């Protein structure tokens, strides 16, 4: 019997309402309210917002770890975007960092953290990001361009310089989000300037396999240091549904650039983590027809290779060399 491939979730969030401002949830609730049946009484927006927030009470990640275990997910990258520059936030980016560090300490070996710091916090924010990386061992930078900046804006360069020096990847949100934020700074092609200027930094287009996919896959194909993740796939706007959409994406010759991500807890009311991984791997599922090395790379290998060396959980030199060989095989064997 062929063992199941290892899974590292490359895009996940701590379901903690302390880390996400009320204004973010309010925007999501506004969109839900617009979708309500026309003859139904208008929903109470505050109540709807509270119902959304009530799904974000897993502050210590105990529930998440249980769900990861059910789904045989070995490790998870927690993304901690900084919304504190654009929303009134309960937690500052320092508080968010401390909470994520506490989660890592509570569940050793299960989480990596990509911390967000809005670049407009300037030198102070930049210094804190570096301190958090050094003190907590965080493994990447999360940026959220819908907060109102291009991912190639010079204001981000000091943060990218830290990432270049420390071998950290940068993950950036692409595509629409809560309607209270800006969408025109969320196109994948906007990373081009930064990707050229910082060739030693690897950039991951979050939701790139779901939003603006044509742009995202071209960036991945032609920029060596640009990758995409498939987080958000259960809700992809594609006529054939997510299975057909991903099967098409996996046939484009860029599987060595594609990373699995669940975007938990965003889809926790639709598919839990086990349903997501099972749906990808099941007979007839989008991963079922791919060569084993490609499956392993999408589900774990590629995100693992982008983490700083200290975080790649005992990877020997020989193993690392094998991974490089696998990556080359995938590139040459893809359908």
């Amino acid at each position, binding site marked *: 019997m062929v063992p199941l491939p290892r899974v590292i979730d490359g895009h996940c969030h701590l379901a903690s309402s302390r880390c996400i401002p009320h204004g973010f949830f309010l925007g999501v609730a506004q*969109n*839900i309210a617009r*979708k*309500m*049946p026309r003859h*139904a*009484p208008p*929903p109470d927006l505050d*109540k*709807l917002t*509270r*119902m*959304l927030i*009530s*799904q974000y*009470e897993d502050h210590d990640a105990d529930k998440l770890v249980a769900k990861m275990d059910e789904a045989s997910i070995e490790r998870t990258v927690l993304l901690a975007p900084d919304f504190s520059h654009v929303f009134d936030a309960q937690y500052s980016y320092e508080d968010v960092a401390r909470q994520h560090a506490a989660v890592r300490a509570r569940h050793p070996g299960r989480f990596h953290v990509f911390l967000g710091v809005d670049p407009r916090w300037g030198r102070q924010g930049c210094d804190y990001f570096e301190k958090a990386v050094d003190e907590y061992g965080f493994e990447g930078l999360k940026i959220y361009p819908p907060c109102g900046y291009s991912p190639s804006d010079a204001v981000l360069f000091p943060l990218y310089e830290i990432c270049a020096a420390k071998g950290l990847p940068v993950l950036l949100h692409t595509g629409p989000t809560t309607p209270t934020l800006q969408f025109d700074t969320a196109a994948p092609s906007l990373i081009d300037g930064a990707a050229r200027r910082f060739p030693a930094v690897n950039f991951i287009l979050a939701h790139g396999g779901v939003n603006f996919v044509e742009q995202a896959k071209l960036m991945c194909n032609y920029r060596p240091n640009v990758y995409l993740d498939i987080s958000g796939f*259960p*809700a992809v706007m594609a006529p054939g549904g997510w299975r057909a959409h991903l099967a098409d994406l996996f046939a484009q010759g860029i599987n060595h650039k594609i990373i699995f991500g669940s975007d938990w807890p*965003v*889809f*926790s*009311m*639709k*598919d839990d983590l086990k*349903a997501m991984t099972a749906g990808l791997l099941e007979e007839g599922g989008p991963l079922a027809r791919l060569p084993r090395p490609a499956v392993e790379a999408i589900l774990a290998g590629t995100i693992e290779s982008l983490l700083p060396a200290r975080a790649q959980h005992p990877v020997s030199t020989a193993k690392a060399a094998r991974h490089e060989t696998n990556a080359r095989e995938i590139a040459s064997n893809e359908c």
Partner: protein
Amino acid sequence: MTTIQDNAAELPALIGLVQQVAYDLPAGYAISAGSRFVEDLGLESVNRLMLMTLVEQEFGVSLEQHMPALIELQTVGDTARFIGSLRAGR
């Protein structure tokens, strides 16, 4: 296995609400107690939240404190029974 006797009195009205939010329901599909929200009805998270809002309006119950339990319910029948227990004050 779900039986007629298992079904809560809330089931018929709940099925009516589910029909309002299940936009991608296959033609001719009859929603029953055993219908699963994701696999059979194709409900997204958004649709399930809409459903809960409608349930509150229809049955006069508050679901805010019960969201973690509601998320784990897989079928229409399970949800009808849950609502029944809330209404009965259990």
